[in-house]
């Protein structure tokens, strides 16, 4: 087994035992990036020099016997939606092409404190809006298992770089499935923590009541390791929960008996790809063989989740993205210069439009891509006079019903299992002109964000055409320990997560 095929946990063991240096590991990943990144295009930026320096420093400190952090020497890639001080943070948007935040996101500060090697920032759908990474203003990312297909999104780069062996660990964000869906389509592990488990300070806001930062990795053990570094209370995020962080990297391996796994019959209804259904049912048989009690449960309002989500998320987005005004930071439209010796260019005859409003509108017209505009428009419409009660307030009420469904279900079972998506990775360009079809991909994932509960996606098989298939597990709020342990049990007896694409 080559160095890059080891899990992060195994690499860390070698680093700690002095059998491997951070410099060697970082060099191996940078060489892999040089070889396969031109095809996959998972990154918006690779920090080769900074990574090498950081690795050398970690090695020196380790040699000297200094205290080093939990992830000391492990390369970590970070979705380009997290602020990195003084370094570009683009959100894959023209709007933030030149933005260099004056501070680090809390999770970035935690990664630095843990002595992780920040190897690069990963591509995404613009402002995390989308499920294919085709909405990136820079370039689409390709699925390492089939370069003609999408890696999913919005954390498509974060998933693809782990799948392609360009980083052992990465950090994504998940507002409606943006960690779990690309993890599923790329055959890696992705975990969306409980709302409030990980600080959102310095995470560029999309929908603030739904956004969560989480780990992506090759194995469940690795995801537990990274989550432990990311999680914890932060006074700079008032929605961050003051709940102790368990030692996930240890508890993940604790034995687990009498696990109760719920399945929802509607999740296996029409529209589910036959290969996906077969893989999920086989995964459930694995759980049964491990002694788990797999039983049917009801989530009566699950069928309303996508509609609820596509009211709440765009409403919050339209408000959050109002900050991009061409004034404080980011892109700004400038009027074309007046022709020499001639009259200034006349403004269009719009009586309502002052020069300032024109600046706002043109800045936003040129700075945002179509999907971002679509969500801003949808949210502005749903919040506008006469529609607020019918859409936004209505959606908030249905959100409570969805949450109550989960509260009821988790009285009877420990975890709920389902597909991550109804089908394996789709072709690039297949859905870009059909936004509603793209939204419906989120069917299995959005409920967890609406309810605020944690969910994990992990590989559980392959389609007949060789594309990875993901299994989703959901747990009650702050149930990350049982979620990780439940997922780890599966990986102990299967090797789907050990497969790598041939690139």
């Amino acid at each position, binding site marked *: 087994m080559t160095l890059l095929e080891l899990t992060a946990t195994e690499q860390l063991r070698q680093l700690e035992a002095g059998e491997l240096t951070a410099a060697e590991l970082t060099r191996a990943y940078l060489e892999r990036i040089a070889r396969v990144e031109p095809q996959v295009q998972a990154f918006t930026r690779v920090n080769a020099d900074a990574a090498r320096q950081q690795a050398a420093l970690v090695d020196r400190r380790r040699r000297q016997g200094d205290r080093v952090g939990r992830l000391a020497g492990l390369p970590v890639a970070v979705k380009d939606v997290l602020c990195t001080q003084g370094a570009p943070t683009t959100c894959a948007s023209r709007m933030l092409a030149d933005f260099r935040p004056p501070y680090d996101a809390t999770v970035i500060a935690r990664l630095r404190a843990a002595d992780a090697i920040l190897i690069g920032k990963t591509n995404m759908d613009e402002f995390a809006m989308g499920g294919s990474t085709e909405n990136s203003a820079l370039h689409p990312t390709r699925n390492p298992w089939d370069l003609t297909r999408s890696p999913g999104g919005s954390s498509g780069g974060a998933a693809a770089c782990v799948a392609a062996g360009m980083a052992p660990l990465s950090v994504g964000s998940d507002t409606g499935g943006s960690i779990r869906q690309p993890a599923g389509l790329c055959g890696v592990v992705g975990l969306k923590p409980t709302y409030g488990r990980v600080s959102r300070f310095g995470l560029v806001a999309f929908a603030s009541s739904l956004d969560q930062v989480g780990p992506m990795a090759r194995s469940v053990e690795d995801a537990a390791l990274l989550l432990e570094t990311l999680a914890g209370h932060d006074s700079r995020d008032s929605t961050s929960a003051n709940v102790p962080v368990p030692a996930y990297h240890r508890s993940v391996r604790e034995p687990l008996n009498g696990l109760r796994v719920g399945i929802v019959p509607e999740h296996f209804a029409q529209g589910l790809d036959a290969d996906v259904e077969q893989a999920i049912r086989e995964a459930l048989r694995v759980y049964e063989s491990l002694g788990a009690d797999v039983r049917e449960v009801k989530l009566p309002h699950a069928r309303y989740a996508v509609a609820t989500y596509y009211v709440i998320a765009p409403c919050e987005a339209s408000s959050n993205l*109002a900050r991009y005004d061409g004034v404080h930071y980011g892109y700004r439209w400038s009027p074309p210069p007046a022709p020499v010796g001639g009259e200034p260019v006349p403004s269009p005859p719009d009586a309502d439009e002052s020069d300032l409003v024109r600046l706002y509108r043109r800045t936003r017209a040129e700075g945002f891509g179509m999907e971002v*505009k679509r969500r801003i428009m949808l949210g502005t419409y749903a919040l506008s006079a006469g529609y607020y009660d019918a859409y936004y307030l209505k959606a908030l009420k249905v959100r409570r019903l969805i949450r109550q469904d989960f509260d009821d279900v988790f009285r009877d079972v420990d975890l709920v299992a389902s597909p991550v998506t109804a089908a394996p990775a789709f072709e690039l360009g297949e859905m870009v002109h059909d936004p509603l079809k793209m939204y419906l991909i989120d069917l299995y994932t959005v409920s967890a964000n609406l309810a*605020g509960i944690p969910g994990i996606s992990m590989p559980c098989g392959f389609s007949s055409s060789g594309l990875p298939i993901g299994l989703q597990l959901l747990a009650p709020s702050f149930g990350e320990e049982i979620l990780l342990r439940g997922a780890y049990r599966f990986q102990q007896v299967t090797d789907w997560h050990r497969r790598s694409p041939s690139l």
Partner: protein
Amino acid sequence: MGITKDQVRKVALLARLELPDEQLEVMTGQLAEIVTYIDLLSELDTDRVEPMAHAMDLANVFAEDDVEPSLDRDQALANAPRHDGQCYLVPAVLGDS
């Protein structure tokens, strides 16, 4: 419920977006389709359901009123497209520019 092009034009102004006519056309069709789907929610009776704005039942979170270091002006202005070293610059809002 149908959405008209005029409504979409008005929403674009509210959202401070400028949409050329051909985009307005496409956007009207797409929003209409999405809103029709969202109307699925109307089949649920939610009269007695409390709205849920947040995933956690958080009360107000207070912090001690301590002065802590914050960004200095140069840092705060560093990403501004136009500034004069003290203030952000925008087109004149009152009177002639």
